[in-house]
């Protein structure tokens, strides 16, 4: 790219000045085409004013006057399309461009950059000549056939290798849709989306977006009631949150989803599908006084923190009568299980006791001794 330079005493020709202008224009359009995505940047809404027909011979029919609001867009060539004052949409122009409109159908409305040569102003002491020394970067409004907007929206930016690029009829920016009343030949209504197609807004091409002050926010609209995703870092506490939720104006985001710096997630809605909790099990036999083993892969810390819940089931192992020391003396005794419990949320120690009693004196001659049981323990959680 050539950048003009000027020397003292140099006589400047038109080419020198045009080269300077071209240099600036190329810088601008290349920036728009390489660092941004083309589309509507601001405004350019189709505003309506409700009206009624006033023909006394017919019943009144509602219609709308449509005005393209001021705003700015950038097309795929990187050209700026600027509207500084509202522009009324002309129903006659619509019927000129759409030969046979149909009631109730959405017709896309585009703005298109055009260049209009203008005569420069005369200067004192110069001959009054009509030279076209200005180019007005103007626009025109175009109506399209239903569905035409799809091919327009799919266009990629013109590559840098093509310089300014060659403008084509398809180089336009969608600003909305209108419905037309063919009976009264007026606009019936406007829309900002058609089926799944929506207005394309400008974007940013970036692999890294950095906030200067520790708060990074994405908004769905420039202002008003909108949704936001905000990453907020607290430099004093070292904590950080990622929030998604509604925001009214510049008020605080009312989060429905929050992730903190430790990965803890809070949400107001429901998870679909719901996360499946893992279930692990262990089973076997166990003596009184032994701690119930945790299933493999189960972290003791997670159990203690309550992230994993345990469920246990114990069944005493039957015993046959045998000789047992009761009161110090060996007696043929019968077993009776008196205890078989575990505090699975506590110390997890099995308490299994068997009362060995003399069948001749069951209430006076007995001794309680450790027993054995079979166990099953389930661990559920994440």
């Amino acid at each position, binding site marked *: 790219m050539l950048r003009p330079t000027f020397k003292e005493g140099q006589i400047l020709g038109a080419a020198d000045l045009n080269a300077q202008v071209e240099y600036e224009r190329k810088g601008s359009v290349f920036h728009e085409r390489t660092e941004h995505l083309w589309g509507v940047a601001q405004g350019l809404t189709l505003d309506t004013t409700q009206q009624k027909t006033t023909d006394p011979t017919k019943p009144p029919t509602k219609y709308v006057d449509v005005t393209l609001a001021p705003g700015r867009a950038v097309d795929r060539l990187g050209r700026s399309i600027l509207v500084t004052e509202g522009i009324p949409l002309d129903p006659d122009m619509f019927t000129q461009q759409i030969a046979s409109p149909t009631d109730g159908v959405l017709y896309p409305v585009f703005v298109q950059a055009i260049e209009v040569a203008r005569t420069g102003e005369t200067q004192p002491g110069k001959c009054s000549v009509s030279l076209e020394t200005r180019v007005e970067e103007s626009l025109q409004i175009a109506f399209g056939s239903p569905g035409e907007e799809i091919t327009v929206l799919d266009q990629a930016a013109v590559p840098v290798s093509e310089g300014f690029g060659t403008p084509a009829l398809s180089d336009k920016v969608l600003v909305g849709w209108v419905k037309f009343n063919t009976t009264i030949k007026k606009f019936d209504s406007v829309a900002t989306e058609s089926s799944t197609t929506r207005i394309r807004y400008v974007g940013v091409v970036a692999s890294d977006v950095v906030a200067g002050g520790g708060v990074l926010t994405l908004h769905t609209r420039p202002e008003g009631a909108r949704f936001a995703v905000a990453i907020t870092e607290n430099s004093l506490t070292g904590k950080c949150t990622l929030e998604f939720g509604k925001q009214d104006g510049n008020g605080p985001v009312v989060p429905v989803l929050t992730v903190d710096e430790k990965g803890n997630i809070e949400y107001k809605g429901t998870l679909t599908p719901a996360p499946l909790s893992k279930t692990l099990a262990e089973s076997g036999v*166990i003596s009184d006084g032994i701690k119930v*083993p945790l299933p493999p892969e189960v972290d003791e810390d997670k159990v203690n923190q309550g992230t994993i819940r345990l469920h246990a089931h114990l069944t005493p192992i039957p015993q046959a009568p045998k000789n047992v020391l009761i009161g110090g003396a060996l007696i043929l005794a019968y077993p009776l299980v008196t205890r078989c419990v575990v505090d699975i949320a506590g110390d997890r120690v099995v308490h299994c006791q068997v009362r060995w009693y003399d069948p001749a004196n069951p209430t006076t001659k007995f001794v309680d*001794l450790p027993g054995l049981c079979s166990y099953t323990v389930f661990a559920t959680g994440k």
Partner: protein
Amino acid sequence: MPSALYGISFTDTGNLLAVCSFEKQTLTKKEDADALLKKLIGDKLQIAIGDVGVLEISATRVAADLIDAKQDFERVVSNVYGYRLKLGGNDKPGDGNDKVVEPAKSNFVTNIKFNGSPATEVQVDLKEQEGPFGKDAFLVFEGLDPIKGKTTPNAKDAKFPLDPTLVLKSGEFYRMLFIKDDVPVSAAFLKAP
């Protein structure tokens, strides 16, 4: 991984005091066995004798081992106190090596009683004489470290003098466990004279 049976034994004799089965774990050294023991019993093994309260044995006096008891699983489970680790060569309880078990049935306890009033010793009567030389035996008495004693030569008993500083309350019950390598472990809950 398949399930395996683990035994907790008295380190001095290898007698089983408790068992637990769960998914097989790889124990290759003493540290592995110690870690497993800590998971299973913490700092002490609690043995519930009597209606309320337990007899406690410090974790330093017991050990955990994987027991290869496929043939004897049911017998071991139904009579834990009747088995001991079969220790050969340099095997020690809790050394991390897999063990096999064998019945401890050379003799058995017929009676346990206090001698003296107030009691000064615990006498454990055996079915048979243990021979002309005293053999090692242990009494785990409530509130005390395991007492090491010997069988009485040419007699059918083993006597364990109690620490003179220990004052037994007459009429109260005390828990105890007699342990000898070739005799089933015997628990008693005796009223002090």
